């Protein structure tokens, strides 16, 4: 099994290498001229008033949390999908219950307006 994953490791390294090579080529070939105006953040032309790293709407976090939960459910679905045929009806019912609970949670989110993007 490990022999099959070794190419992936190599691929990760090679892909990184390609990226680094591109960046290096750009760094070597590209001209350089320092200029204060140029190195300011791209905005409307005034100097930036404040740091761009501001607090964001809590909605983004909510989306991220929901994503984690659903991602976990998908992680559970993967092994199920591989074996449910061998286990039979029990597995099907089991996953139906699992998904029903998930759907209930989903309906809850929906009804409460957590999926609304105002």
């Amino acid at each position: 099994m490990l022999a099959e994953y070794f190419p992936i490791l190599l691929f990760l390294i090679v892909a990184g290498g390609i990226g680094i090579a591109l960046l290096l080529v750009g760094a070597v070939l590209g001209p350089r001229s320092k200029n204060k105006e140029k190195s300011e953040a791209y905005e409307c032309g005034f100097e930036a008033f404040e740091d761009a790293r501001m607090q964001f709407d809590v909605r983004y976090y909510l989306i991220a949390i929901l994503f984690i939960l659903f991602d976990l459910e998908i992680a559970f679905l993967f092994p199920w999908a591989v074996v449910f045929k061998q286990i039979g009806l029990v597995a099907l019912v089991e996953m139906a219950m699992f998904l029903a609970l998930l759907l209930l949670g989903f309906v809850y989110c929906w009804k409460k307006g957590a999926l609304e993007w105002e």
Partner: protein
Amino acid sequence: MLSNFFHSWIHDPLIAHAGTFGLVVWLVLCILAIAVPVILTVALYVWWERKVLGWMHVRMGPNSVGPAGLAQTFADVFKLLLKEYFMPQAASKFLFVVAPLIALVPAFAAWAVVPFDDKVVLADVNAGLLYLLAMTSLGVYGIILAGWSSNSKYAMLGAMRSAAQVVSYEIAMGMALVGVLICAGSLNLSDIVRAQGGNWGIFNGFWLPLFPLFLVYFISGVAETNRAPFDVAEGESEIVAGFHVEYSGAPFAVFFLTEYANMILISFLASVLFLGGWNSIFPVSWGFLGAPGWWWLFVKAFFFAFFYLWFRAAFPRYRYDQIMRLGWKVFVPITIVWVLVAGCLVYFDIVGPGKV
């Protein structure tokens, strides 16, 4: 076959003369044999995109550099590489440099498990599908890091929007993959393609029983790659170029490469997962036409790649709340329900490997 030829002329002598090291060299050659064509395809794809857009706008598109403007993209690439690249004063230096790399690596590494033909796959891993999903989910890092490290408001807004969007559509995408998995009964991509072989040609593909998932998958793929009509992350009229607004020169080229490599990847995956990969679209019994081969995969992938361009030319941009609504309120329920339906279909032997 071509692969046999390479195997006996390059692989065998390498192993014989250099042992493990030779194997590594062979694998690196294989990887380059995938990565370099991907890069070239990106170049051609960009040219094709501009041509198609041009035609749809009733204009010529690139036509001056090289025959039919074919060398236009290459000229653009050299231009980008020769340009200065600078970093905003307030940026986090290290992350600003690393972000394009972090975006590029998963976009390329995902290609490792794509089967181009029977047994022509770099890493024939058991958990291929899961690996793909994992790699796709890493794509969001490049976006977030680029946006944050630039320390610019446009970049930040673009990164947040696009991260939330990518993450939302990943759910639908993962669920669609589960549907495929149910029908194929295996996580191995070659097995998935084989499960779609049969005497009905294209109708053996999973797109038929999993039609809703098929649509959801491809549309999610478009949203995942931040392409039109879901390209609010770089809606020019609102936030300029989104997360990579501060990038120029070579790092920008890397982001550009990543985006197009991802698009091509999605096109290939849609073909592999739903249209039967290297299987012919005609019944096997049709002789030459029915013979499986890598060219079929490329034809199918080209079909999807064209759709990307068509979408871009034809649809107006979605509003952000509409994008989120589509992802969460339409796709997620559809996929959850259809996963169950697919489970029942397979359980009652209506669908399965080798069946229609």
